[in-house]
């Protein structure tokens, strides 16, 4: 991935995430973590290379085909990015818009047949009582759970999470990470998560990938990822 201003943000990153696996990416600010996720989701266009999701190359698709291919991947952002003035339940149900394209939903209606499933998802992420509340009344941790429920409503194969716990207190952060791991293990999703907390990465992920200046520095099972590897990512900056 090269930015129009000539800065090379990602250089030959080759990464595979299997179903049922939680992979975290660590790296300092500007190492290319977020760019990598945004390239995979095609919020930015990679200048070279492939993004294969379920065998389809997202980097080559455009328009309607891209929209269809995106159904297989869901994203959770640092800020929950909920529609603040709508109810929690409406926010979750809007995750299904991609496969419920009717005249009704085109003009702002919610797919009624998805509401029971949306309630079930809220229960799964542990906020079933908040369904009727407006999204802007939630705490950070609650909002992030709802955002995860919305991502799940899409029934994706791959979940991308961009610093999902960066704006949460430590306790809420642990709970969100536990939830993400549970999705990988119990629902067989592939989860790719960008983190700033090495400790959380070591504890919850199956694999840890270190990124530095757009290059993969290491790609290790979490059990083998020790503090000295992590120190490699941040060394220069500390000195």
């Amino acid at each position, binding site marked *: 991935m090269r930015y129009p201003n000539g800065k090379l943000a990602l250089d030959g990153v080759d990464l595979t995430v299997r179903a049922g696996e939680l992979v975290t990416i660590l790296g300092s600010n500007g190492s290319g973590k977020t760019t990598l996720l945004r390239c995979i989701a095609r*919020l930015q266009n990679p200048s070279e290379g492939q993004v294969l999701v379920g065998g389809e190359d997202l980097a080559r698709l455009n328009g309607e085909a891209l929209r269809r291919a995106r159904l297989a*991947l869901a994203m959770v952002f640092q800020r929950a*990015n909920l529609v603040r003035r709508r109810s929690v339940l409406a926010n979750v149900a809007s*995750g299904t*818009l991609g496969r419920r394209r009717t005249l009704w939903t*085109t003009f702002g209606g919610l797919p009624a047949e998805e509401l029971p499933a949306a309630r079930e998802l809220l229960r799964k992420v542990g906020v079933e009582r908040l369904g009727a509340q407006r999204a802007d009344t939630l705490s950070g941790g609650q909002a992030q759970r709802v955002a995860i429920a919305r991502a799940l409503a899409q029934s994706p194969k791959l979940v991308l999470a961009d610093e999902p716990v960066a704006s949460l207190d430590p306790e809420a952060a642990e709970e969100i990470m536990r939830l993400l791991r549970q999705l990988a293990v119990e629902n067989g999703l592939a989860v790719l998560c960008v983190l700033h907390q090495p400790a959380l990465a070591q504890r919850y992920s199956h694999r840890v990938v270190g990124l530095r200046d757009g290059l993969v520095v290491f790609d290790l099972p979490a059990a083998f990822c020790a503090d000295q590897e992590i120190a490699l990512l941040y060394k220069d900056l500390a000195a």
Partner: protein
Amino acid sequence: MSVDGAALDVAPRPARSAAQEPGAAALSKVGFTRRLVRGVVVLAATAIVAQSFYVVQARPGDLITGVHGMVDIIRRAMPPAWGDIADIAWPALETVDLAIFGTVFGVLMAVPLAVMAAANVTPARPLYYLARAIIALTRAVPDLVWALLFVTAVGLGPFPGALALAVHSIGMLGRLFAEVIEDMDFGPVEALTLTGASRLQVFTHAVVPGVAPSLLGIGLYRFDENLRSSLVLGFVGAGGIGFRLLTAMNLFQYQTVSLLLIATFILVMAAERGSALLRRQVA
């Protein structure tokens, strides 16, 4: 007279800065420059205000000699012609309806225009410039001038006034709406785009809930402004209370004039309070 005015403007300048210098010498150089700049700004502002007095030919004396003329008019305007209330009910309704028509059509036209004129959601660059041009044109021409144009085009009566308000509102609302859309939180839009939703779905499910309350508030405020404008539009023959006011003035019916002014006051206050109340509800 003009020489006098010019002398008055310029004279204090050397005097003031000379008086400042001894004190400033004790201060640091930076402090001195700042004081000098401040002094110049104050002088310039005084000069600007002074020339405005001269140009508008302000003669405070005339206010005093004119008092008995005003008292005479007020005396002749009392008591208000309460008997005419039934007569002015229709023009009052016309005034309110002018504002309603102008606001509703202004909003209806301004929303699609604002979508095109918001840099972040505009469908195409040429449309962006076209929409911006329409907004600039309809905004720059005052509603009174629009009313004059429409009176010429469609004749006397409330309709040209309603059109004038609608057209001017398009520009005023279009710009504010576009700004609201540009300042919108883009997170939810990105999030819904990634769920594979269509462009129109993203618009109705993320953009609309995000901006609707602000748009409603701006629209209500516009109604308030349009009501006040519609009172004046009658002066150029575009119907409503203004037209009755002009007629009554020309016929020296000052008691009717005072009644009309009371009606105007009530309408404006009601619109202001009502729109503020509703705006609080949607905020």
